[in-house]
């Protein structure tokens, strides 16, 4: 009995060590064989959030295209800095991926991180999401223009909820406040609590991603007054944009995928074409339609220029509003 145990033991130990070592591809594996093992995808937001859902859906879509699984790992905290910091320090071998968004930039200007998009090699932009502003269904303002007027004439009376200080939704609310040349009370909330607070009467409005309030809008408990995008979206055909409501503001949340800087070009190209296929698939289009996401593929090179431009705009905006630390 003891001997069997010993034999079993040695077998298991060797399995362990081999598996631990053997899980690595032969050092410096040729890029044409990429990917040879699962690619770890980091999401800087919590499980169940809008960002997390698109991450998981996309991983699911990429798996048959790339032939390897892309397990999603949530690395939250530090105002998104934990996740970004982790991936930026990984080996640029194409096996660590991360989803980026404007949050990367706002976190930098907020002072949570000391780096921004240059620490990564952007692969492709995947999607857009407009930011919505919603009030209770029976609130005294039926349109965005009315609400905007009210804010202008009543500084300090309106309380607007957002998803956290320094987050993109906070930025949008601050931009509205700026345009109205008035004052608004910004109330930071965690995920989902803003809606409860509107219904409970503690805040008047909330700035959120449409997917988070779509159901309540359809149930006529909330009214989405306007969207921050340049055009209306298919999921909410009756909701005007800020521009249509005579507010000269256009802001959009973008999401894309990236790998640590220094990743070889062949790997990047492979990922880029795989991402393009996934974005153009019917499955993804249907998914986006249900979540009020706009598929917006943009290849890596243009994407990096796009981010640089957004970087400039966000930096300026945050400075004007006063939330920038740089």
């Amino acid at each position: 009995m003891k001997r069997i145990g010993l034999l079993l033991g040695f077998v298991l130990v060797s399995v362990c060590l081999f598996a631990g070592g053997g899980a690595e591809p032969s050092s410096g594996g040729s890029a044409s064989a990429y990917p040879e093992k699962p690619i770890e995808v980091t999401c800087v937001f919590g499980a169940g959030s809008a960002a997390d859902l698109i991450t998981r859906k996309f991983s699911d879509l990429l798996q048959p295209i790339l032939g390897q699984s892309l397990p999603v790992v949530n690395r939250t905290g530090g105002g998104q800095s934990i996740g970004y910091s982790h991936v930026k320090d990984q080996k640029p071998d194409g096996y660590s991926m991360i989803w980026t968004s404007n949050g990367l930039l706002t976190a930098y200007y907020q002072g949570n991180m000391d780096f921004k998009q240059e620490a990564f090699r952007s692969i492709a932009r995947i999607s857009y999401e407009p930011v919505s502003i919603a009030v209770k269904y029976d609130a005294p303002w039926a349109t965005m223009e009315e609400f905007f007027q009210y804010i202008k004439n009543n500084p300090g009376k309106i309380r607007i909820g957002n998803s956290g200080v320094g987050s993109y939704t906070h930025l949008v609310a601050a931009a509205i406040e700026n345009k109205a040349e008035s004052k608004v009370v910004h109330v930071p909330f965690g995920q989902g609590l803003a809606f409860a607070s509107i219904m409970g009467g503690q805040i008047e409005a909330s700035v959120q991603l449409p997917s988070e309030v779509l159901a309540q809008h359809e149930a006529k408990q909330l009214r989405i007054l306007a969207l921050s995008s340049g055009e209306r979206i298919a999921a909410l055909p009756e909701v005007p944009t800020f521009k249509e409501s005579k507010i000269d503001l256009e802001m959009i949340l973008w999401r894309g995928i990236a790998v640590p800087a220094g990743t070889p070009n062949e790997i990047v190209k492979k990922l880029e074409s795989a991402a393009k296929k996934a974005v153009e698939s019917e499955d993804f289009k249907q998914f986006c339609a249900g979540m009020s996401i706009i598929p917006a593929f943009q290849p890596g090179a243009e994407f990096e220029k796009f981010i640089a431009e957004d970087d400039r705009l966000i930096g300026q905006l945050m400075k004007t509003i006063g939330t920038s630390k740089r």
Partner: protein
Amino acid sequence: MKIKNHSVAILALIVCGVWLLYSAKISDSTMPGAPGPKFFPYIIISLLAFLTILNEILSWRRLLQKKKMKTAGSVRGGVSEQEDCAHSPVQSFGEEAADRKKTFLSFVLIFFYIAGIDVIGFYPAAVLALFLALKGIMRINWLKSLSGTAIISGSVFIIFSLVFQLPLPRGIF
């Protein structure tokens, strides 16, 4: 026992001091109306300091009273930490005195195990730590230590890395 208690009190006050020092570094910005990030920490620090000092004062008083009782010829009253509320809901350590050296070694082992997870990867560190714990600290013979290590790390590997595909640290590899 008493000396230990006093050193704990001193330690607590030092912690308060350190926290206070670092409180100064917190930025004061806040949304209008609400107290800033420093508010709660200040309250907690003051509470802790207050309680610690109160504890000290009370224990000194009891000490003095006990001395008085002793000189009066009768030993009265209980020790300070006794039943005000219910029983102890917390684990109390075993009746036998744990081997102090082994306790110390165990903590050291666990610490280096974790460091190892970071540096050489999860499974190598686990194998090493398990073996050292079984053989080194608990003094189990070679055979049982090795097979124990193998079985435990093997099963964990199968369940977590093969079945669940849970990503675990790889260390420098």
